[in-house]
């Protein structure tokens, strides 16, 4: 292990410039990816904050019986996702309505001889990441119930939101995948150069009884080290950018939505990013070395 570390060190030293260029490239690529991630995370939390207001409203038919009402209430109280339920009677709804439009008092409302509004249950849901799916499923349950006139939960808006987030996810995956592929090529190229710089020595190693792993490990460490360094630099870069934006724009952000904050990517995402940096370094160097070992072992 100590010899491997030492060999890695002398590999890097003998090829420092190439190593640094490679690390810089990895840093840039991961910064791009990280930036997208930060945007995604913030967009997600922003839209989630907004969508907190989403409620499921179950409108009831005027002819609904007490028994039907009871069974609906049972259904609601059986669902653990529901945070609160408010019953709004026809009269309350009407009063509410009139209240809201009192400033634009129109004769039309006063002229109405009967109350056109239905009574309803207003349901609030506990926050969770798949809340929308659950709301939709729950809403579908009501549609088929007797005594229910209609349900409403801003389905068009929710659908668009979900589609948008799905699109962003796919986009991120594609960008991440492409960047990853590019980085693997770059790293494998750097390792190849590092290899050629010491070709004579490596061939001699294999010739006088080194195991393939003995030759491989220092280069694998070098590749992973490159990836890790690039990943760390990229994270530092994004973090400082995020701090800057936070200081500059926190005020205006607060005015858009109270309690909103410009966020950094979460800890699991950070770890994931670093792990993929390591993995990319591992794959890149593995490819480079495998080519060499399989062609150069018997010569």
């Amino acid at each position, binding site marked *: 292990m100590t010899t491997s570390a030492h060999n890695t060190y002398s590999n890097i030293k003998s090829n420092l410039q190439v190593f640094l260029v490679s690390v810089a490239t990895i840093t840039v690529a991961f910064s791009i990816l990280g930036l997208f991630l930060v945007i995604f995370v913030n967009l997600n939390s922003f839209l989630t904050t907004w969508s907190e207001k989403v409620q499921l409203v179950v409108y009831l038919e005027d002819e609904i019986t007490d028994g039907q009402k009871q069974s609906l209430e049972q259904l609601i109280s059986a669902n653990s996702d529901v945070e609160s339920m408010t019953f709004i009677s026809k009269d309350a709804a009407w009063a509410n309505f009139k209240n809201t439009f009192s400033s634009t008092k129109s004769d039309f409302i006063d002229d109405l001889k009967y109350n056109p509004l239905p009574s309803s249950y207003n349901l609030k849901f506990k926050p969770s990441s798949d809340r929308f799916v659950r709301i939709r499923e729950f809403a579908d349950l009501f549609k088929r119930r007797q005594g229910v006139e209609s349900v409403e939960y801003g389905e068009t808006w929710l659908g668009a939101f979900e589609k948008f987030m799905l699109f962003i996810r796919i986009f991120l995956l594609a960008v991440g995948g492409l960047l990853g592929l590019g980085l693997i090529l770059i790293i494998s190229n750097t390792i190849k150069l590092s290899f050629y710089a010491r070709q004579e020595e490596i061939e001699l190693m294999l010739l006088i009884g080194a195991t*393939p792993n003995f030759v491989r490990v220092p280069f694998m460490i070098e590749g992973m080290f490159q990836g890790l360094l690039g990943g760390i630099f990229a994270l530092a870069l994004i973090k400082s950018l995020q701090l800057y934006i936070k200081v500059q724009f926190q005020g205006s952000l607060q005015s858009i939505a109270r309690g909103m904050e410009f966020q950094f990517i979460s800890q699991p995402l950070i770890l994931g990013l670093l792990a993929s940096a390591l993995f990319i370094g591992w794959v890149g160097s593995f490819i480079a070395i495998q080519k060499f070992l399989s062609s150069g072992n018997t010569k």
Partner: protein
Amino acid sequence: MIQLFNVGKSYGGVAPALIDITFSVKKGEFIFLTGPSGAGKTTLLKILYRTEKYDQGQVLVHGMNIGKIPDRKLYTLRREIGFVFQDYKLLAKKNVFENVAFAQEVIGANKKRIRFKTWEALKNVGLTHKKDSYPQQLSGGEQQRVAIARALVNSPKIILADEPTGNLDPEISIEILKLFEHAKKAGVTVVFATHDQDMIRSRNHRVVVIKRGQLVNP
């Protein structure tokens, strides 16, 4: 113990490099492998070291069929054998001590052992006073001694030497030969390729002669 049975090898040229070679070398034996230039001596040694593959026959080293060793396991064979290359193959960027120690490093020996074994090997070839020199600062004979020290430092059971005295003066050649004979006394099997007939006549070792890829009686 080295055994060759009907070994044949062709590089694809007009005539094969080796034809139907059968002979064996006993454990602890010293043999001269000789023949004119282009006879196939290097090819034969390379086959024993598996840096070249053979087309026909079988080769056993310590009973191990070396044609069957997969590439990733080749190091097991190479660790049994010390090879002294015709062109020395010393690393220019390493000094004498580091060149010899290199053979210990690649088999993963610890630092203390590397220092001890390297020192011992340099002492055996009489080069301790040059341990800090670099290859290009050494004479041909001295470089050859470094190469021999490196081949011996891992205490191999077999030494294959490809014309180790090819470019050296007669007196120095005999000194080099004595190093191999010293190893033989310690129980190492030695195959010594040379076309120096005077050297061969000055000793009583068994002689294997090949001409145009075929064994001939000496």
